[in-house]
């Protein structure tokens, strides 16, 4: 079920939220669990079995880890990791691995044939040509974080299966995060007042939650989906497009992916907030970052912090020799790329970001020496603006690989953008997208978004407040009307669902 569908907005969300507050507190977890199952099964019902497997394994592993000491403790953790990564390996990476092995063997003149995943039907239980279970990487990582935290003794093992299942399946963040930690979400689910989940109806919190949802819908419907139509023109057959169209499509994609993903996150955070749950903040206006490392502190924070805590630090982090540090960083970003999708485009995207960071670290001393006393100026004013622009362009460049269907397509895009002769051999198709004038309308809304994003982001997070009631009404009405009039209402899926 998509957040931007009539089914969710008019039926699921009001019904579940209404029942949540009407039910006795000790039944609320069950309602949320059933609602989450319904939500997930609205996509492909059978895939809930995969989720059930992950939940079952990690629930048992958590208790077993908590009860044991020494090598057995570690063995249970390893078993949990193998089970989770195994699920990912089968459902997400099997075809990727298979395809690469086939190519490798073919290169050596050997024959290799193992059926692709979509050819499997599991004795008729699954439809042929099945797709990747939605949000697999998200809930697998969330579940994994639980067993790791129990192993590290930062978290007590959950004894109630239903509550643990709800921790993994909590519908607002089930399919595209934020990737929660047990210390945050599981503890909130366990925070009872003796009768059940503690949250009472709080008018202020409900209004704040709804506002955050509205901001999320604005980002998705008005910015992301409008940009998507233009991006698709550029990237469907990049070789047939002129360089200018591809450059514009790439810039639009930067906004599409940000608004699509952070829009989803805002709707998720808002929906959870209405019911009294605080989920992790996942974005902090990332395109205002003045460096790549700052960008990663503001973009998909729940994933970056997951990799930091469970991969980067265990690898040694920065408390090792310099070359190891750089290697650790690079590995983390390669894995992060692979986490997004089983395609060399994502690996290249991750590698590119890893390279940016490593190069920035390598040249940092030189940079400090040359900038000298102007160091302060870099953080403010024109210097910072230049850094923000440079960071945005580097990030946008990397997005080319993220969006392209194949690495070869990405190189076609790059070649055509940087080869001025291609700028005149097309018809600037993106500017003439249907309906005529929609390109300029999209440019306009993107520019407006760039201006209002910091303020609106702070408003929905409660970091700033509008003092005048009329300003509040104007802000909400403006967003609502923009969603209605300028938004695209085809209920398009969210990009990060595929991960």
């Amino acid at each position, binding site marked *: 079920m998509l957040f931007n569908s009539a089914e969710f907005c008019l039926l699921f969300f009001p019904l579940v939220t209404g029942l949540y507050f009407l039910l006795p507190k000790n039944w609320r977890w069950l309602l949320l669990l059933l609602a989450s199952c319904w939500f997930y099964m609205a996509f492909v019902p059978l895939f809930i079995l995969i989720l059930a497997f992950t939940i079952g394994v990690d629930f048992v592993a958590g208790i077993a880890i908590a009860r044991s000491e020494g090598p057995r403790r570690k063995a249970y953790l390893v078993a949990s990791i193998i089970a989770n990564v195994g699920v990912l390996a089968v459902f997400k990476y099997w075809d990727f691995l298979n395809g690469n092995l086939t190519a490798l063997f073919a290169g050596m003149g050997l024959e290799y044939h193992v059926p692709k995943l979509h050819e499997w039907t599991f004795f008729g239980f699954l439809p042929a040509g099945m797709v990747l279970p939605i949000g697999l990487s998200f809930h697998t990582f969330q579940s994994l974080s639980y067993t790791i935290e129990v192993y590290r003794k930062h978290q007590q093992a959950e004894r109630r299966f239903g509550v643990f299942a709800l921790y993994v399946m909590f519908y607002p963040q089930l399919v595209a995060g934020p990737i929660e930690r047990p210390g945050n979400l599981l503890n909130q689910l366990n925070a009872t007042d003796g009768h059940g989940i503690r949250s009472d109806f709080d008018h202020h919190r409900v209004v704040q939650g709804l506002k955050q949802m509205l901001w999320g819908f604005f980002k998705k419907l008005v910015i992301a989906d409008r940009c998507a139509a233009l991006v698709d023109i550029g990237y469907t057959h990049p070789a047939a497009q002129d360089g200018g169209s591809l450059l514009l499509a790439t810039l639009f994609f930067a906004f599409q992916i940000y608004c699509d993903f952070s829009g989803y996150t805002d709707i998720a955070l808002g929906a959870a907030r209405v019911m009294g749950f605080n989920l992790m903040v996942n974005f902090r206006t990332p395109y205002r970052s003045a460096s790549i490392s700052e960008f990663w502190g503001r973009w998909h924070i729940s994933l970056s912090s997951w990799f930091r805590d469970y991969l980067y630090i265990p690898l040694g982090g920065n408390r090792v020799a310099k070359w190891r540090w750089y290697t650790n960083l690079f590995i983390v970003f390669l894995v992060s790329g692979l986490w997004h999708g089983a395609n060399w485009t994502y690996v290249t995207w991750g590698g590119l970001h890893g390279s940016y960071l490593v190069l920035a670290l390598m040249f940092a001393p030189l940079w400090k020496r040359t900038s000298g006393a102007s160091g302060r100026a870099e953080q403010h004013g024109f210097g910072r603006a230049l850094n923000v622009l440079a960071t945005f362009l580097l990030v946008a460049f990397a997005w080319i690989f993220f969006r392209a269907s194949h690495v070869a397509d990405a190189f076609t895009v790059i070649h055509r953008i940087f080869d001025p002769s291609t700028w005149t051999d097309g018809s600037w198709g993106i500017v003439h997208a249907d309906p005529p004038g929609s390109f300029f309308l999209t440019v306009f809304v993107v520019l407006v978004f760039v201006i209002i994003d910091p303020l609106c982001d702070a408003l929905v997070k409660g970091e700033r407040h509008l003092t005048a009631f009329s300003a509040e009404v104007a802000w909400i*009405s403006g967003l609502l009307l923009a969603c209605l*009039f300028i*938004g*695209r*209402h085809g209920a398009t899926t969210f990009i990060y669902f595929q991960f």
Partner: protein
Amino acid sequence: MCAATLCIVHSTLPPFWGVPNLAIKWDALHRDPIPQRALIGSSRIYRQAIPSIIDSVIGQGRTFNAGYAATFPPATYEFLEQLLREERQLPEEILVELSNYMLFEEANLEDHRYWYYLGPREGWGLVRHALFLPNQPRTERLGFAARAVRATTCSLLGLGLADHLLAATADTDTLLALGPAGDGGLTLETLLRYRPDDEGQLARRATFRADTLAAQRRAVGLRHLYERPSTGGVSLVHLSRLTALLDMAHSRGVRLRFVLPPLWIDRGEDLLALVHALPDGAVIDLCHPDSFPQFYRPENMFDAGHLNDRGARLFSMELARALHAPGHNPEFAR
């Protein structure tokens, strides 16, 4: 504030903004001199009724063809009702194509031209019509009603209005709307002379030419419909809407008649039940394949659902004769 804005936006939108060529026809219909006869309907009026031929057969007055492609009830009824509400001189005679209420398939919901005009009253009428539709299983009726609610909601909330307005502006084509003679008629063959690369029309014509027996099949199907008495009853919602329109026209001194054009009767059983339920003389039936076999001959057809130039001339003459018939009682409309 949102509600107020929505009201303001709706009130500022020009009439029939969602189908700009229909809006052009609306404006042309108001231009002096006001025509004596106006025709309203879908492509079966727009492509088949040639005003100059009707005028020459009748020998007096001017006819304007306000039909347009894919314009079905309740859009046609809305057009007529708005016209009848105008505090100004009206055509003396109005002919409206009789066809079924357009019911919403999923595909209709994608295109605003099918629902842009829906307000609470039209929407509610559609829902009631869908719920009490004769000859349809309950699940179908519920599905139609649900989609009618969705379509009305989309219209009232102005979903995607900006893009729809942009698309509407780009679609405007006066020649296409009013035809070469400026009287609103444009046969399909004339259209192809202006737009020789119209792939949709070319494909439909090619499909028909590859299987001209389709004409015969259609005639047989329609004959069967006429011979088989309707068992499912009539849509009372539709019937009451038509009688209300007849009353409204009568009160404005306008002679209103409904026309059943040839070749195409979608959900024909319902439509023929309606023909029988309407007052005598309120319907001009030019559809019966035994009375009008010329409309079912391949040489007079453009595609399986429309007449070509020659067929349109024949249809226009028959329509004019029916209007000019000595037995025609202008007071049929109660």
